[in-house]
């Protein structure tokens, strides 16, 4: 899967949880939780959506590695 495809899935997962969000406008290194005012339930829903879309396991201990758009893309690219 290309990085663009992963980005598309990541943005889709974010906008499913926060429909009002425009993920493209989030600074790449900004903390997604703070930028979008999302809580742990929302974050878990994003992780679950990524798991379904990309068919990868994301251990709980790795959640901090997905704190920003940039770090999430790096992590997901490595795992896919």
């Amino acid at each position: 899967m290309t990085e663009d495809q992963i980005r598309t899935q990541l943005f889709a997962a974010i906008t499913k949880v926060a429909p009002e969000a425009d993920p493209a406008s989030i600074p790449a290194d900004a903390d997604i939780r703070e930028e979008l005012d999302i809580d742990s339930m929302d974050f878990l829903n994003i992780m679950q959506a990524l798991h379904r879309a990309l068919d990868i396991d994301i251990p709980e201990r790795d959640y901090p590695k997905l704190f920003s758009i940039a770090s999430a893309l790096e992590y997901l690219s490595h795992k896919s």
Partner: protein
Amino acid sequence: MAEFLMPSLGADMADGRLVTWLKKPGDRVQRGDIIAEVETDKGVIEVEVFTSGTVEKLLVEEGTKVPVGVALALIREGVSEGSAPAAPKRAEPPVRPASAVQAKPPPAFAPASAPPPASALASAPPPPAATPQPARLRLSPAARRLARELGLDPTGARGSGPDGALTRADIEALAKARHPAPEPEPSAPAPRPAPERAESRRATSAGPENLALRMRQAIAAAMSRSNREIPHYYVAHTIDMTIALDWLTETNAARPIAERILPGALLLKAVALALVDYPEFNGRWENDQLVSNSRINVGSAISLRNGGLVIPAILETDQRSLDELMHKLQDVVERARRGQLRSSELSEGTITVTSLGERGVQSVYGVIYPPQVALVGFGKVTERPWVSAGHVVPRPLLDVTLAADHRASDGHRGALFLAKIEKLLLEPEAL
């Protein structure tokens, strides 16, 4: 024959507008079926029926605003599962024009068709009146601001976001496509309910700005009543969460992502189980005395992204496994943010839990939702110094607080209640 009544979905709900009938005369209904949608200050709520039987007659037309407790329909009780469905009857035109509808006095809360807890809550409507939902029109604060700046009324527009949410780009496109329309006057007459059900599910008589104002007013009314009538007292307790969090980490590590549990589920279960031993915090203050609730329905305060909050309850919280609680919590949060809560979830909470820890708050001192008599607050789990076996060690600590009604309980019992929550969290595998 049972009457299906306009339910009370909060202490300060005086009336509601019947938006849509989802059943017609002749339809069989089972307890828990959604029979209608009602617009309140909380938005459009799916209303369940608490009598099994056959819809005999609809008494109120769609679009009619009626006081709480007025009969909306008649349900013929006792139709068994296996019996043939009643022949559909031609619906007689509902007979009550809006202006003629009057609230019945007390019998309006007759238990025959009111939700079971409503019978228990007879004269005291259940809690979170202050829990309005967002308008069904989905648009972000930025999109709303832009619409306001452009003088654009986006009502009825469908956006490119999930579930038709409107983005800034959608508003810009709308502005180009239309001549700017003036913002609707708050006092504008309510539109007639849309003829199509799919449309009417989203129809509200108030624009989003007006609904937001009504939400704020509902919260203001409930909180003012609480501070005016309830003599609050507060106690706090600090819990070492090491054991609970270690257990959770270990448990989640062995589970697929869809089955992982959040700490919030542990906290809800611990509160619910502690209430079994301390029922005075699971009651309501009624006619100058504490009345116990037979079921433990813990409500979770959920903030809405566009402002306001809702407090849907998970029914019989103490009876559910952690897995069930987690799934219920996930479901209810998702539906709360979509504005698709059900009447029982908003009307049957017996205590409220609020957690602001994720926003960095260390301790929460809440305001009780009348007629409830207690509210539990959880703060942020933070690593702080803790003395253990004579040594100062860093530990993940959680402050839990109790706001309680001093008419119903005393601080001593409040302190014991919080200590019980701690004890339960020290044995997470038993939750």
